[in-house]
């Protein structure tokens, strides 16, 4: 194996005084060898990202590497003067980030952003650097590099931006590329392409990659070696096949077990009379004004679906597919432009607010963002009983029921007097679920309820949703971008793209024998599919 490229020894990263803990990274030792991909995997707060930033010498203000060594080419990076580490940055060690939109300067052309890096380390004229940049963009599989060089970041798609970032990072053929969750902000099919690209250039250039991720599926696709981090420490490290196939540490096992496998386990429930029938529903948005004219965007295009008691229908799609708009039309947060929504025999698509009110309580929703979905100025008790109070339920009775419901979603009823900011993301989603359940709904719409949560918490919330559905015989509409999650909780799925239904059917059938190319692409893009052992 020879000399490691990077040798991290007992790294300690200290947080500023007043943080919830003293050390974000607490004695981490890792090596990265030449020509390999090392994945650091962990949940939020594990210190994985700060470890990577410490290597780059780019720790945020107030955060310092207070102990240990990072050896690179015989020098300790933590002890190099600023000018020394600056010479290495970009030339020997390059980095790409999670959100490529935020990582590119919005007011400078792509070309200048790449040449700036080249010319920081090589004394060549701008014109020559631009030619190099164009070549790199072509190598990243980007069409028309000449035009791209003159473009600004907002004119590119997310996938294109991340390719630009990679081209920039590779512009001086670094020995190490640090990739900090480079695909988390991207759609799943784009993610698959970017992962493939990183893998390809790593092999072609025989370079090393330090890849930070929270997703064991991505690890299975990418890693030569894996380090699992938790609470600032490495709990397990080893060859990818070894860690994935035969995890030693209980936390690793839990993490791997929590990853949905993307294989359907649920059989469709017997369809009796549907509770909800949506027919040819459409929704347009008008944007622009004055000059651009009023260009209408069709967000939902003649979508039909049925939903019965006791079943979960998954609506799957990438961003911009119209899945959330569809959900908001069904619950009448948005007014549909065409089509009908038959709920228990009545068409609610065009009902007046007054007529809708008695029906409204029977369709409830759980929202995506655990932070913005709860009113920060109300206590949990006030939040949970607000619905029944709006329907005139007695305060005392509502509070008693609230205690029961909170217990049902796994929270202590004493939480009622506390405020939302005192709770974690997973707990907040439970509060949001309790709020919805207080109205004893028939239909529960869950709009990406777990996408903001860590994978272990995600598994718990998914299980809770499924339990509640069974106990209360709910019909559930489950909106998600994640095929794996859909497979886990949905009896039937409907795949959407550009506002239209691409395919629908029982989950098992759709996953085993997809009838459309798009569904096939989505399935193929699931990271780590087939590489993780079944639970």
């Amino acid at each position, binding site marked *: 194996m020879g000399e490691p490229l990077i040798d991290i020894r007992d790294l300690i990263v200290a947080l500023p005084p007043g943080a919830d803990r003293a050390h974000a990274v607490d004695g981490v030792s890792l090596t990265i060898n030449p020509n390999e991909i090392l994945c650091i995997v962990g949940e939020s707060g594990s210190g994985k990202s700060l470890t990577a930033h410490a290597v780059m010498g780019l720790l945020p203000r107030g955060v310092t590497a207070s102990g240990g060594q990072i050896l690179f080419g015989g020098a300790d990076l933590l002890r190099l003067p600023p000018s020394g580490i600056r*010479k290495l940055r970009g030339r020997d060690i390059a980095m790409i980030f999670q959100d490529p939109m935020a990582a590119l300067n919005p007011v400078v052309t792509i070309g200048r952003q790449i040449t700036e890096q080249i010319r920081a380390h090589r004394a060549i004229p701008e014109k020559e650097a631009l030619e190099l940049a164009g070549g790199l963009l072509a190598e990243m599989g980007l069409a028309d590099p000449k035009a791209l060089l003159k473009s600004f970041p907002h004119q590119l798609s997310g996938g294109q931006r991340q390719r630009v970032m990679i081209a920039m990072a590779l512009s001086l053929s670094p020995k190490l590329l640090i990739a900090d969750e480079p695909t988390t902000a991207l759609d799943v099919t784009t993610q698959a392409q970017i992962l493939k690209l990183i893998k390809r250039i790593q092999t072609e250039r025989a370079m090393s990659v330090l890849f930070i991720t929270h997703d064991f599926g991505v690890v299975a696709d990418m890693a030569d070696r894996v380090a699992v981090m938790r609470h600032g420490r490495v709990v397990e490290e080893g060859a990818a096949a070894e860690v994935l196939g035969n995890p030693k540490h209980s936390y690793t096992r839990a993490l791997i077990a929590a990853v949905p496998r993307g294989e359907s386990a649920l059989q469709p429930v017997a369809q009796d009379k549907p509770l909800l029938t949506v027919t040819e529903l459409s929704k347009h948005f008008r944007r622009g004004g004055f*000059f651009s004219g009023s260009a209408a965007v069709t967000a939902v295009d003649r979508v039909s679906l049925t939903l019965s008691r006791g079943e979960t229908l998954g609506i799957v799609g990438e961003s911009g597919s119209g899945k959330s708009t569809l959900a908001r039309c069904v619950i009448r947060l948005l007014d549909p432009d065409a089509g009908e929504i038959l709920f228990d025999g009545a068409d609610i698509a065009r009902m007046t607010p007054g007529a809708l009110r008695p029906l409204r309580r029977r369709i409830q929703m759980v929202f995506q963002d655990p932070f913005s979905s709860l009113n920060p100025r109300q206590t949990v008790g006030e939040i949970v009983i607000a619905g029944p109070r709006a329907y005139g339920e007695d305060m005392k009775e509502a509070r008693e029921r609230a205690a029961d419901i909170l217990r049902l979603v796994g929270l202590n009823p004493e939480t009622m007097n506390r405020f939302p900011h005192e709770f974690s993301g997973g707990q907040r989603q439970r509060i949001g679920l309790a709020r919805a359940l207080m109205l004893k709904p028939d239909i529960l719409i869950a709009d990406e309820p777990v996408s903001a949560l860590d994978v272990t918490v995600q598994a718990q919330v998914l299980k809770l949703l499924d339990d509640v559905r069974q106990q209360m015989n709910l019909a559930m509409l489950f909106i998600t971008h994640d095929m794996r999650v859909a497979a886990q909780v949905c009896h039937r799925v409907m795949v959407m793209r550009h506002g239209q239904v691409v395919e629908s059917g029982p989950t098992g059938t759709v996953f085993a024998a997809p009838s459309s190319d798009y569904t096939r692409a989505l399935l193929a893009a699931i990271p780590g599919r087939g590489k993780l052992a079944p639970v």
Partner: protein
Amino acid sequence: MNRLTYIGARLIKTVLITIAVVLLSFFLVRLAPGDTATVMAGQAGFADEAFMKSLRAEYGLDQPLPVQLWKYLSAVAQGDLGSSFVRRQPVVDVILERLPNTLLLNAFALLVAIAGGVAMGMMAARRPGSATDAAMTVLSMLFYAMPQFWLGMMAMLVFSVWLGWLPPFGLETMGADYTGLTRIGDIAVHMILPGVTLALYFMASYARLTRTAMIEVADQDFVKTARAKGISEGQVARRHILRNALVPLITFAGLQSAILVGGSVLVENVFSWPGVGTLAYEAVTTRDNPLLLGIFIVTAVLVSLFNLATDIAYSIADPRVELGR
């Protein structure tokens, strides 16, 4: 929406604002007790009913409101803002005579404010919480709390009355009849006190804004990217942080120009700067309502033109403008 349609939209907005200003003025005149005829009769010293009637007919005041409005609009469109009661001269001529002095003073103040403010803001942003930063915060709080005219008087008290360094009044030395470069130098010296007084308040605003924007931008990912490229801290600050932090400053300069003009009315008065501001004061004291209204219209149109210019500058500085705002 590309840049041209954006500029087109802003151009139309400027025209609409101008029309709105003129409409507003038309109705403002009707706020004052008595109409033009009563006022003119009062000036003439007698209020004979027949004379009033002939005056009303002469000025079209006996016609229905829409007709009067139409006449007013078409007059303004031809550059006719009526005539000054007191000076017996077209309002436009009176204002145009004074306008260059006001423009000179405001341009100088704007330059001083932006240059000084950006420099101060950058210094404060370099180390948030440092002594420099704290001093800057205290200074800007003081400037925000001072009446601008009073600040001018205090500056005059210190630098002209007590120290005798700078001339306290006017545009140039009276009766000296300087020409050429000597005259330019003389005006420049006279401009220092009023110009800096006017600039100080805005300098504080620009410093605050620059500081906030710099700190905000410095936390963004693309600054991390820039550092990851291995370029020097100076280059990171100039090319990436400052470049982005200046974008909101352009819009701000446009919006502040309206307040600048208001401040200039007061400061001109303190330093007897022969501009539109002192003219406004004269109009108030002599109850010359057409002149006062004319000043409002002219300054409003100038400020909205300046805003058009900053909008165009903004569209050049920020390519994202095509995403629409």
